[in-house]
């Protein structure tokens, strides 16, 4: 996907993964909202660590990733609701918005990632 195409996409999720606790609420909320099969995910949490970087420092973080099944909850958003993963995220590390506004916030938020899923193409 070219940088240009990305810039044209309108909505996405900013995920402040520094504080993602890996609780699976986003995954379960999505599965139940859309009746997904057991091996299907609209959002899936990946894990890095625990890994020891130095004698005193451990690294252990989670990263929720959006799959091609993600619609950014278009039906919910049309009703005025938040995507269900954002609504239920226990650590409240997910933000739904336009790519432009989220990109601004991304600059101020270390250990975060901006997702523009396929549904936005």
């Amino acid at each position, binding site marked *: 996907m070219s940088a240009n195409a990305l810039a044209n996409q309108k909505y996405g999720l900013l995920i402040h993964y520094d*504080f993602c606790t890996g*609780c699976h609420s986003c995954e379960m909320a999505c599965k139940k909202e859309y009746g997904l099969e057991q091996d299907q995910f609209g959002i899936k949490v990946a894990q890095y660590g*625990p890994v020891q970087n130095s004698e005193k420092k451990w690294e252990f973080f989670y990263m929720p990733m959006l799959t091609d099944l993600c619609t950014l909850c278009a039906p919910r958003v049309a009703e005025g*609701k938040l995507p269900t993963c954002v609504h*239920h995220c226990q650590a409240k*590390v997910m933000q739904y918005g336009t790519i432009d506004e989220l990109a601004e*916030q991304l600059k101020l938020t270390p250990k975060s990632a901006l997702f523009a899923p396929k549904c936005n193409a």
Partner: protein
Amino acid sequence: MVVKGNTYNLELYKDMYTWQEGDYQVFRTTQWSAPGCHNGCGVLFYVKDGKVEKIEGDPQNGWNCGTLCMRCLDILESMYDENRLKYPMKRAYEDRGKNKWERITWDEAYDIIEEKVRYIQKNYGHESIIAEIGTGRNVWWQVPWGCFAGLQSPNQTGAFLSGDSCYSPRSSILALMSGEYLTSDMSQMLPDRYESKEWVVPECITIWGCNPIMSNGDGYLGHWIVEAMKRGSELVMVDPRINWLSAKAKHWLRLRPGTDAALAMAILNVMIKEKLCDYDFIEKWTYGFDDIAKAVEDMTPARASEICWIPEQDIIDAARFMATAKPMAMHWGVAIDQQPSATPTGQALICIAAVTGQIDNPGGSLVTRSAYNISLFSQEGFEDNITEEQKEKRLGMHKYPMRGTGISAMAHTDVVLESIETDGASNDCEQYPIMMQWMQGCNPIANMAAEAPRVYEAICKVPFNVVVDVVMTPTAMACADLLLPAAMGSERDSIRAWWWPLRAITKITDYYEAHGDEQILLDLVNRLNPSAAPGEEVKDWVNDLLANHSEADFDFDYLKEKVIVWPEWHYYKHEKGLLRWDGEPGFNTPTGKIELRVDWLEANGLSPVPFYEEPHESPYSTPELYKEYPLVLTTGARSYEYFHSEHRNLPSIRAFHPDPLVEVNPETCKELGLEEGDWVWIENQRSRCRQRIKFNPGLDKRVVAAEHGWWFPESDPERLFNVFDSNINNLTTQCDIGKSGYGAAYKCLLCKIYKCTEENSVITPTAQVLDKGGFKYERKRLS
């Protein structure tokens, strides 16, 4: 930069009890068990044609602020599981263990109960009936009342949780030292939460003996701590395992399981030696500081380092940070309780909170009571229903004097077990046999009972058993004569006051003939002792509680409409005369101060100050055993998927976590020729069970951490769902507890692990228990 998530659309998420949204009637209420956990989150049930079709977190509820965990998000699978109990059922005594049930009506069930209870009362005494509950579920203020008012027995108890090793050890020592409960302050007392002007973000949160984001123990939602971390709180994490919190901690103290008292005393040693304490607070509000200074004098960081397997400098650095960070919130969990030195460990931890002056201050440790002082939590509030003579017959009251301090009206679990085993000959009061168990919301042989095979024998020995639950459990299959179907959260009226604010639980739907726990107990009391019943409906009962046992000036209908009501909160209550019965400043203790030294303990043959006691089975106390079992075993670490033994029957949850897991350091595995995912036998001198290896490189190489609560609902009910195969409580023991009567070694035993093979798996633990008469070893007895 604090990412707070988006703002919810409050035109859609209303501040009222119910509204219409498209085809759905939306109900705003509180979800407590069943299915279970320690929390009471605000939820929205979306109902169509009398059936819940979906659930969402309630953004208007300041407890969970719109979020939900995966278990609530999957609640429909629980509520509409085909295997849920639908009708009352009975089974012939000789068919115990067999899947031979006969559907009966509620009236028939109550007739049977009434007849049995009256027969036992007449021939053996009221005290011969015991009532048992499980942790944190929405039965644990109701069952004590039902036991006292209905069965009129003094013996309500936790279901074979050895040493009452959940919260009672902490709460009893808190009662003696401070007269109160203490809870870490994450703004949960204030309706505006993290935006409240009064609240201060803790500079340090000391988390000791729990992983709150998974366990959510003790009426506390763990993710509140994450909000504080996002706002700058740093952690001191005391935990043998690396997990998400310990990896992020400023100071992670990886202690050897069961050595918490030594570590806490060493931290006090540093604070006192380096004069880092809050001497103004100590002078004004504590008693016995010099005795504490003396008690911890010899527990230097160097000595604790050897005991706890933590580098000396780490202890010093953490102690300095805990003492100088303001405010410092102490958050302590069940691991404190699940070791024989539960009481002295609790003493040392309360001393840390007190000598740093971090008591009832914003961002510190709050003096916490139930909202509107409603007398639900402390079960002695219901004791008016039994006679003084009956109280004297409560098992364990005489053997363990701390039980008489007024904080717990529970019979002692290990004394109950021995009473069953000896037909009452071992009672610490008048001799009487246990003739009946009323078991509600508990599944001891799958979950909390130490030495599960021994407890299996005991529960089957009792002549008549009633089990109230939501699904068929191994416990029910093993021993129930009557099985009563319990309603789930949205199928019952109830109330939630543990701790704050006050919340309504509202009946919205029905499920076949399942009845709410409250309704069942109310029916029981109306049958057996109608003069004690506040009415026939749960609403009558709740209104009686609100009117006569609380400071609230509203009734259930008001609460139901509001859903959640916040009383006015006060910090520094001890300064304002808001704690003591006489209205004077101070704490509810004999000295009016936090008693660092507890004279009452000394008068009752216990140590007035903390001390260190080595775990009873350990590398140092039992070196011969350690040669054969060279790994320290800690059990019961929580996961996001499961609340104790629940949720194993739900495919969507199980897919995330299909098998029982034992965490082991990869280097230990390499030495033992084991790979991640291997099934291994975990074994000690008592017994064994099998779980799968999960690597944890952050565990000490000498420590393994095994899960609890495993049974296999998909397997044969008549094999008790293979409840013993992966049951870590095959290895734990009953009747080896702290001198105070509190604390059993769920967290600090020894074991070895080796790979499961076809040859060494011929006789499974379940087969050993059900077909071969159990495991042979010498059972411990209370000393």
